[in-house]
């Protein structure tokens, strides 16, 4: 999924094709190179085969695995048992699952919807008024935190938060404070804001560029303060971008596995978001059937977010 597709409405070539003179034979109206349907199918098949094998099939298989009691080892490994909705009822009655859902909601809500969205917008809106080198410097650092490999930034944060030698404790003069143990949720929330704000900043920067300067000038001349100007002039123009951005970062944060690398889901499951929960149950714990049931729930949530997003794109494409 990429933001570049935001500029790509899905139905666009049909009209262009129809306006060309029709040709006879097997080649279609837009097919000026004479590819033909046969070769076109050949061209499409490798890509579709990989998509079918590694996207479609896993999704469908999750549906099937989720109704089995299927373990990586033990008696249920050789002969998986059909348990119907058993895994789902197990999940719904498991306090660890409920805990994980709540944590995921808090993680996505605080770090993406509020944190990245808000800070990204603030950075985009304010930095444009700062002098060039300050803007470049802050922009560069925000971007750097986004493009560095995940494993590296996780280690950097471990160095920052370490109990004994950590930079944060040295700065705050709180020797021995164990941030990741005492505040695991806050740790992954702040980390994710740091890690992902760049995308929102870039998107809002582009959106604000499109607000006509003359409108802002008019608002200023009429004595409208910054908050009113934002509400009456800026907001109506960037509403679509806010929705797009929120849906995308929600989707990414919801599927983010980095909390596992930072806190391992602990201590005592206090940072165990759904991806971490699935990993620990199925890959570490070997309960593949149960893990698949949870994965399916995740797939459905992803589907809902993605459908919203695509509807938004379509409406804007028209």
């Amino acid at each position, binding site marked *: *999924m*990429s933001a*570049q597709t935001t500029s790509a409405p*899905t139905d666009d*070539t*049909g009209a262009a094709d129809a306006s060309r003179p029709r040709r006879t034979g097997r080649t*279609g109206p*837009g097919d*000026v*190179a004479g*590819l033909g*349907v046969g070769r076109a*199918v050949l*061209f499409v098949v*490798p890509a*579709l085969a*990989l*998509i079918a*094998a*590694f*996207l479609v*099939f*896993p*999704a469908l298989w*999750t549906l099937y*695995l989720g109704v089995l009691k299927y373990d990586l080892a033990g008696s249920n490994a050789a002969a998986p048992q059909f348990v119907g909705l058993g895994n789902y009822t197990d999940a719904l009655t498991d306090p660890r699952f409920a805990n994980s859902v709540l944590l995921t909601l808090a993680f996505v809500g605080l770090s993406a919807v509020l944190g990245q969205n808000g800070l990204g917008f603030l950075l985009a809106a*304010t930095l444009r*008024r*700062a002098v060039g080198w300050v803007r470049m410097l*802050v922009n560069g*650092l925000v*971007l*750097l*935190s986004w*493009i*560095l*490999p*995940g*494993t*590296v930034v996780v*280690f*950097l944060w471990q*160095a920052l938060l*370490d109990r*004994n030698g*950590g930079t944060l404790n040295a700065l705050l003069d709180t020797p021995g404070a164990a941030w990741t143990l005492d505040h695991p949720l806050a740790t992954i929330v702040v980390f994710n804001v*740091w890690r992902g704000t760049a995308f929102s900043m*870039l998107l809002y920067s582009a959106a604000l560029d499109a607000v006509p300067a003359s409108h802002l000038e008019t608002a200023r001349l009429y004595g409208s303060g910054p908050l009113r100007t934002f509400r009456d002039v800026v907001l109506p123009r960037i509403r679509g971008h806010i929705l797009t951005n929120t849906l*995308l970062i929600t*989707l990414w944060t919801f*599927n983010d*596995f980095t909390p596992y690398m930072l806190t391992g889901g602990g201590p005592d499951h206090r940072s165990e978001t759904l991806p971490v929960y699935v*990993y620990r149950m199925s*890959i570490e714990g070997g309960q593949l059937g149960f893990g*698949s049931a949870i*994965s399916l729930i995740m*797939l459905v949530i*992803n*589907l809902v977010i*993605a459908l919203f997003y695509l509807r938004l794109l379509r409406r804007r494409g028209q």
Partner: protein
Amino acid sequence: MRRILADALVRHALSRIGLYLFAGLMLVFFALPLLWLVLTPFSRTPAYQITAPSFTLHNFRVLFDNPFALRSIGNSLVLAGGTAVLAVVFAGTAAYALSRVRLPGRDALLYAILLLSSIVTGTAAMVPIFLMLFQLNMIDNRLALILVLTGGLLPSAMFILKDFMDSVPKSYEESARVFGASPLQILRHVVAPVVRPGLATIAVWAVVQVWGNFLLPYILLHDQAKQPAAVIMYTFYDEGGQPNFALISTFSLLYSVPVVVAYLIVNRRYGFRFQGGIKG
């Protein structure tokens, strides 16, 4: 009148102060974790603690002496390069065919795969993908991992490339055809050069995606000799669980530099707009 002017001046000064306070705060917040990456590789006493500069290159000796460190960078290159090549070739041919030939159900197909690519993420599909390769006896098979990674990137790649293909003027192909070029020749010698920026975009995007990917190689490659950089860092600890700081700090730097360089090149060529597509 004078009062109003003074008010406006004060307000302006306050907003400036607020602006630079915020900028300063953000500077500290975003720079603080990065300090370690810049200073520790050159420190004489590498630890969690950031020490005052005491320049040495000794830590890099530790890096080059480690049997897995450089090899894992090579592994990352193989995974990223292989995935980029497959994604560019398969997405390119598919996007061209979909752009030029009206296959039945084309628009529905494009919509479906776009939807799929956002739903079936590595995290949501880790169980079936792990189980599939486990049952096929393909754990530790790098080609299998490359195919899995390619499959995940193809929908977005096809989508972006179809836009590029749609924008190629059809008159180019028409004239090539008049001179007797075959469809394959036209694709290679006429279309591909025109959409080269698009192909480069996809290649760089694929490399960056794979370069940083942790979860899939983590669950699909168990042999240390085959693991990429993202995964191998977790083995740089001694028996007591204490990190090998000399190794981790220099390795982090070596492993980060290529993405930063790639970003700078891309940014210079395509500007910020490209960034929208580089991530996710």
